[in-house]
């Protein structure tokens, strides 16, 4: 590990998480920068799922990275940095939330959000799909915070059930149940839409 030195001109993107983390532990500030810049946005987004208050989430993300830097030499090996960061942030925000619950609602600046499609919208030119999209979007707004969080972790951030469970600090069964219920809401929403698409599936098959 000692021979590894992050060269600024070489891309640190090619390093594995374990190598990047190793450099950070040795005090390589470039490696540290690479890490936080890669995950800042996802972490903020995830944090807002937990508590949609800018000030709290930003403070927590800031403190998380500052802490990592300060304690870098004592950190363990991390083979999936993203997973580590999400878990650490979740713990931090939940602790804050517990502390601040009393006046949390009085804080201003709720974060604006939008309901987006993470995958390429292959049905974009089909008229009925836009009606469905709209229905689904509305359904997502009705989902609970926890359900939204699960969907974000599983479908957007790409975590496994095990990882999502660990990050959210609940068991895997609960993760699955939450996700299942969320999907149920969406499926029921779809049902109400005129059942016009027949050949949809074959569009993908052939």
């Amino acid at each position, binding site marked *: 590990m000692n021979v590894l030195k992050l060269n*600024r*001109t070489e891309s640190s993107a090619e390093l594995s998480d374990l190598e990047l983390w190793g450099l950070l532990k040795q005090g390589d*500030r470039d490696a540290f*920068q*690479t890490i*936080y*810049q890669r995950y*800042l*946005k996802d972490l*903020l*987004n995830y944090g807002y*799922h937990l508590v949609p208050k*800018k000030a709290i989430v*930003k403070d927590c993300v*800031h403190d998380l*990275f*500052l802490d990592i*830097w*300060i304690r870098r030499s004592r950190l363990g090996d991390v083979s999936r940095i993203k997973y580590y960061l999400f878990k650490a942030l979740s713990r931090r925000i939940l602790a804050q939330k517990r502390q601040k619950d009393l006046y949390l609602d009085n804080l201003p600046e709720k*974060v*604006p*959000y*939008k*309901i*987006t*499609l*993470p995958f390429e*919208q*292959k*049905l974009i030119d089909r008229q009925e*799909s836009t009606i*469905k*999209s709209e229905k*689904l*979007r509305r359904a*997502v*707004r009705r*989902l609970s915070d926890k359900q*939204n969080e699960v*969907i*974000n972790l*599983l*479908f*957007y951030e790409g975590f496994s059930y095990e990882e999502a469970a660990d990050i959210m600090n609940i068991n*895997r*069964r609960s*993760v*699955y149940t939450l996700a*299942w219920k969320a*999907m*149920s809401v*969406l*499926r029921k929403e*779809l*049902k109400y839409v005129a059942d016009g*698409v027949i050949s*949809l*599936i074959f569009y*993908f*098959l052939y």
Partner: protein
Amino acid sequence: MEDNFCTRPPLYYHKVNCNCMKYLDYTVEDFVLDGDFRQWVINPSKERNLFWQKWIEAHPEKQEIVKQAVEIILQLPIKQYEITEEEIKNISLRLERSIDLHENPSAGWKTKTIPLNNPVISAKSDRRFYSRKVKRGVSVAAAVLLIFGLGYYFPLLQKFVFPENAPSKAKLTVKENPRGRKSTLFLSDGSKIILNSYSKISFRHPFEEGKREVYLEGEAFFEIEKDENRPFRVFTQNMATTVLGTSFNVRAYPEDLDIRVSLATGQVRIDNLNKDIDTQILSPGEELIYVKSKDTFQKSKFDLQEVLSWKDQILFFRNADEATVINRLEHWYDVEIEVLNKSPKPWAINASFDNRALESVLRTLSYSMDFDFTIDGKEVTITY
């Protein structure tokens, strides 16, 4: 496979280990939540296509369920919070600052990284403090530093890591003036910076591509060469002043209660780096005052002569009180001024001293304010 089963409702526990079999009891929800299935929908490959094609042919009754699952996956909406690039940048900046501060807590005004060609020994370091005497300059500075310590990070310039993480071979250049010295810098882009005494400026030289960024502690006057592709930015504490081509003055001494940006010509934009939305545009003749304790901006008109005369070697006062005058003199001439007794009347000095020696300035002041003074090297005593 065992692993997979644990995450599923008990319904599937008795199923045999064949992937194809387990799907028979799947509901729409189960399909959506199934990793393999989702992979096929999002990222179809030949094998996956083949597998599912066969499976659906073998189980035509499942077609409707599969269809719905595909639809949900493809149109699965996700609640995403809106995060701007600006926000990301600000939080990066804040983080870098905190780390700099942590790494080098004593770094600030007095620590230095570049040797001065003509070292002027700081009078402050080996100074003895006499508690009985009123040391106005010192006491003011101490009080303000205390406030500082309570709530403010200040950027530690020589270690500032630029937020963009752009690979750069450029060295960080630091120019620092001790008290009693001013200097003029000419940058490679044709811009000119006049750095006041007791001030420090740092920047990457040559500038990184697409930007011109400098970091200032203290006061400087900028005459910036127009370059629309490379906005010129001055970072001070938690404020950024962005210009396209213009001349303006920035006063940001750590011990001051405020930061002032005074615009002579052109246009500048000022961002509060602590906040996401706090941006001000200045027009010529306008001055922006950032009140540190309140973290807010105030806009007002400024007196061109009062603010800018320092760069022409003119010590200029307009309606200045005692603390202001003494503070200015200490910086300007690199002296420590002790005031004994109290002034019988409040100071309100209006004066312009063009390149004058300290003694001459003090003599003039002493006539109007009615005091005696002695100059002993770097120590000045004023007695009423």
